[in-house]
């Protein structure tokens, strides 16, 4: 879909200041620049003709989508359009559901993750995931973050301490929990729990971070914190986020993909998709005519 990456231009591009929020209807933005930016980056994840089945049910139809590195890609669409299904294909989370099947290819750094002999455990260390409902383990805050590194074989206490602090800082939670790392994670508020889950996902040092409606169960203030966080994290990670709210997609993402009834209807730079959608369905959805 897109030509191979030009890594040498990367640093220059990431150094450029990004607009903090992308307003819904402002036509003065230089779209071509944004589009070039997306195309110039290495493509971290490339889906080619992905079809996905739950038993007999054909859920995803011929989805081809490139996800550029160090960008935020938002997957939007009405409920039941299978955007979460697509997200869960990227770390093979759907493998856990009986009777599912995928055809086509999903490349992570040019390697097909669905080829036989793929080590799914290794894959999931490189592709972290944050879920819609925060799901901290019923363990201490420390143990939650240390879980990933521990199963990866890190046993040294000092090393774990370091990872836990680094990830909690990255997830903007360190200040709030530094003095009670041994407390149960279930005592945290909803927003804190979700940031803990983000810290936990960062602790395996993934390249890609998948987020399935990470803020849908949170109040506006916690949502804003998560969005700030996503904005900061994209310098180090490639982020794919499923979201129900158009505004969130517009605020946090660089690229937006619109799914409808299991098909990828349109994908492009977020500013383009929101200001001059090419497809009628996209326009109807983002202007709130359905969905």
């Amino acid at each position, binding site marked *: 879909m897109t030509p191979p990456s030009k890594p040498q231009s990367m640093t220059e591009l990431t150094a450029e200041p990004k607009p903090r929020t992308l307003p819904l209807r402002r036509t003065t933005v230089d779209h071509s620049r944004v589009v070039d930016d997306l195309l110039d980056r290495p493509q971290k994840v490339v889906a080619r003709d992905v079809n996905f089945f739950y038993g007999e049910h054909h859920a995803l139809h011929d989805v081809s989508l490139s996800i550029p590195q160090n960008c935020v890609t938002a997957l939007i669409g009405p409920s039941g359009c299978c955007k979460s299904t697509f997200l869960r294909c990227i*770390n093979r*989370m759907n493998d*856990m559901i*009986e009777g599912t099947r995928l055809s086509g290819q999903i490349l992570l750094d040019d390697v097909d993750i669905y080829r036989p002999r793929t080590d799914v*455990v*290794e*894959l*999931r*260390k490189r592709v*972290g*995931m944050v*879920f819609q*409902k925060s*799901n*901290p*383990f*019923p*363990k201490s805050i420390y143990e939650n973050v240390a*879980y*990933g590194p*521990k*199963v*990866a074989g890190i046993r040294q206490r000092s090393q774990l301490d370091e990872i836990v602090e680094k990830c909690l800082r990255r997830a903007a939670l360190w200040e709030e929990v530094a003095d009670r790392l041994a407390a*149960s994670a*279930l005592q945290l508020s909803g927003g804190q729990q979700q940031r803990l*889950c983000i810290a*936990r*996902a960062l*602790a*395996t040092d993934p390249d890609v971070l998948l987020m399935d409606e990470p803020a849908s169960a949170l109040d506006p203030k916690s949502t804003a914190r998560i969005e700030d966080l996503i904005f900061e994290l994209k310098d180090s990670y490639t982020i794919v986020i499923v979201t129900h709210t158009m505004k969130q997609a517009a605020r946090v993402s660089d690229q937006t993909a619109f799914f409808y009834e299991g098909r990828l209807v349109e994908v492009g730079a977020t500013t383009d998709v929101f200001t001059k959608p090419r497809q009628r369905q996209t326009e109807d959805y983002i202007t709130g005519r359905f969905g």
Partner: protein
Amino acid sequence: MSSAPSVTAEKPVVSGGPRRWGEPLMHGLLWLCALASVFVTISIVLILLVESLEFFRQVSVVEFLSGTVWEPHATPARFGILPLACGTLLVTAGAAIIAIPMGLGAAIYLSEYATPVVRDVLKPVLEILAGIPSVVFGYLAIVFISPIVRSLFPQADVFNALNASIVVAIMILPMIVSLSEDVLRSVPRSLREGAYALGATKLDVTAGVVVPAALSGIMASFLLAIARAVGETMAVTLAAGKRPQLTLNPLESIQTMTAYIVETTKGDVPRGTLGYQTIFAVGLTLFLATLALNVLAQWILKHMREKYE
């Protein structure tokens, strides 16, 4: 709207309808049903208490609880419950040592590893195992288990505590498996997914997340199973022998509290004598032990369970 006098206006709406006798009648009948179980429970506890009190008027509680010889029908009679308690403890501990690891293992297998087909076959089989009458287990212990135990340990008595432990372990196994499996399966799917998403293997997820999350329920299932083992009567009466003695050697013949009660109730000790009243004192001790285990299990379930919402 304003005209058209309402036809129904003259009919009384609220009062004077047909009297519904059925409602209060059913209410009362159901209340009686509920009351019956409470009444029976209280009565049993009262009878136990009153009869035991009669016994403890003649034998001091200290002697009863600390005595190391149980010879209620000898002269002079000695009423130290420790040998019987020791017998119960020996059988129960042995059964727990065998049944807990096996039961937990089977529960984890059924909940985490078994395919739906395997589970659909294994669960009903376990339920059948739970439904086998305990007297059958008792003679199986004598006919099959005892010879095996004696071929492995030639010094073992024909009736011995190990027989009883093995057979009681088999009896409480379905309870542990079924209760533990329920709590394991009720661990939210989201927790499992969260762990898998971090690159955990199935073993990591099971041992590091699912089992710890279900631990309170698992512990409660152990306690309920142990309470069942303490109260188990028929199989241990047949398998363990009837020699009350203070020993921790599972190969010797012993007597449990339940087995003593069976023996004395069926025996020729005249009613109203001190020897006869021992069964109430022993019964009360048993009751308190199982009650404590049940209360502890309930407490663990209520206070240690992690809240996921």
